[in-house]
């Protein structure tokens, strides 16, 4: 057991409201640095809201969020956000490398040119996500999984320390899912923290060492094996007890690694 666990994200009694609807209520938790944290919960339980709140995009009705030891607004370059995929115009005239280059822009500001070091990081990011062969292809000529890898590469090129991934496994095939899981493990090894909204409970339990179970309120938070118990899941997802069978099969399912 490590002597001290450095908590990179601390939430204290966070409440977020969208108009009259409460999206998150009184969420308090501490998320350790360098871990893979799965955010689970039924639809509408505030998972995406939590990610966006970490970015500072939602005013907090109460509570506070601490990132590192600085307030969210000053920590933005360290956060990389991957939203659910729909907001891009795929016909935009850009090719893969151009998109990944965008990752370096926050550091370069308005005028500074791309240096050799920048280009090296971009190439590294492309290589890590197996996109080097596709570097000159336009966006619209890529498959869904490839498109998602482009944006992941961009986040990598950004040099982020905390990755906020909203449903990153949606629409990925078996191989792509495996690749992404491998990458997350590699990132953890390098000290990067990953928060991912995950719908597949088995996946969350087997490949994420931490979990947050949400249903507007925080049901549980901690090591994933402790959080993603049948009891908690039944509470969070409002499952009738007759679904015990389904839960049994979930508990024993494994994922190819």
């Amino acid at each position, binding site marked *: 057991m490590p002597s001290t666990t450095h908590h990179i994200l601390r939430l204290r009694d966070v409440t977020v409201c969208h108009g009259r609807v409460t999206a998150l209520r009184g969420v308090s938790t501490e998320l350790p640095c360098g871990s893979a944290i799965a955010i689970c919960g039924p639809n509408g339980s505030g998972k995406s809201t939590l990610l966006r709140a970490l970015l500072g995009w939602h005013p907090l009705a109460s509570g506070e969020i601490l990132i590192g030891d600085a307030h969210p607004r000053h920590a933005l370059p360290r*956060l990389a*956000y991957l939203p659910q995929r729909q907001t*891009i*115009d795929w016909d*935009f*005239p850009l*090719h893969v490398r151009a998109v990944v280059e965008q990752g370096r822009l*926050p550091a370069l500001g*308005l005028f500074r040119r791309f240096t050799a070091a920048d280009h090296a990081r971009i190439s590294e990011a492309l290589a890590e996500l197996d996109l080097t062969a596709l570097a000159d292809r*336009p966006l619209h000529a890529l498959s869904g999984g490839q498109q998602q890898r482009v944006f992941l590469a961009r986040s990598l090129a950004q040099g982020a320390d905390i990755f906020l991934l909203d449903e990153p496994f949606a629409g990925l095939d078996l191989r792509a899912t495996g690749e992404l899981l491998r990458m997350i493990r590699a990132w953890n090894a390098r000290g990067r923290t990953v928060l991912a909204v995950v719908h597949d409970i088995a996946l969350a339990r087997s490949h994420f060492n931490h979990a947050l179970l949400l249903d507007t309120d925080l049901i549980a938070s901690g090591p994933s094996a402790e959080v993603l118990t049948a009891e908690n899941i039944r509470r969070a997802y409002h499952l009738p007890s007759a679904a015990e069978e389904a839960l049994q099969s979930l508990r024993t399912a494994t994922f190819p690694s």
Partner: protein
Amino acid sequence: MSLVEFFSEPFRHDFMRRALIVSAMLGLSGGLLGPLLVLRRMALMGDALSHSLLPGIALAWLWFGPSPAALFGGALIAGLLTALGGALVSRLTVIKEDAAFGALFLVFFAAGIALFSGLPTRLPLTHFLFGNILGVSAGDLRVVAAIVLATLAALYIFRRPLLLETFDACFHRATGGSGRLTHLGFLALVVLNLVAGLQTMGVVLVLGLFLLPSVVARLWCERLGPLLVLSSSLALVCSAGGILLSYHANLPSGPAIVLCLGGVLLLSLLCAPETGLIPRAYARLRPSGRVRYTTD
């Protein structure tokens, strides 16, 4: 007439040379702003905007008389209020930007008509709203030059946030960019150029220069860099070509330039690789398998 005469005869007079220069300058501006307008789905904004200028012009006339500087300023302020107002309304309410903008420009236009009915002038409204490229004065030319230079400078300085915000506003915001400022800044730049264009060249030409070159360029270019270069070049070439055409074929100059661009568009729709009709038809001619329904 000889080839040299063909090109030089129309430009014997100053006013024709000014027409060419203004068209070329605004074509350059439009060639760069146009692709951004198209990518941001703001292609049709110009037409609506042209009508919203009226109350600004009316009030300027009322307070300062027929001073060209005042009228231009009034038009600019009215245009900016409409565009920026639409953007703000859409950000603060559930109403989308196109509806907000549409609502505002109509109100402005109506206010303008009402104001004009009380002014001591019998000149038609179109005289105030729209210019004529053959009526560009030396003063107009200087104003347009200043605006185009400022636009080019702004586009160069802010090219990164602008492109990023156009492509992926979420990422732009997540990396510390101010989407609101970028959007409003872009709108202001567009309004400035559109107003200058409307007052010097009229509505058909300015909208044509701001829209058609980018549409054509998109058919040929997959990358943003070459697209911007092609778009501006097309605007320049067709401005010159259109003016030549209008002189030798006795056509009004503004529409002639747009027709030139239209001709290039048609050609592109037919011939552009991958998207053109002819390459596609050719690809289908090559032997291939087929799917058919059968009963056996």
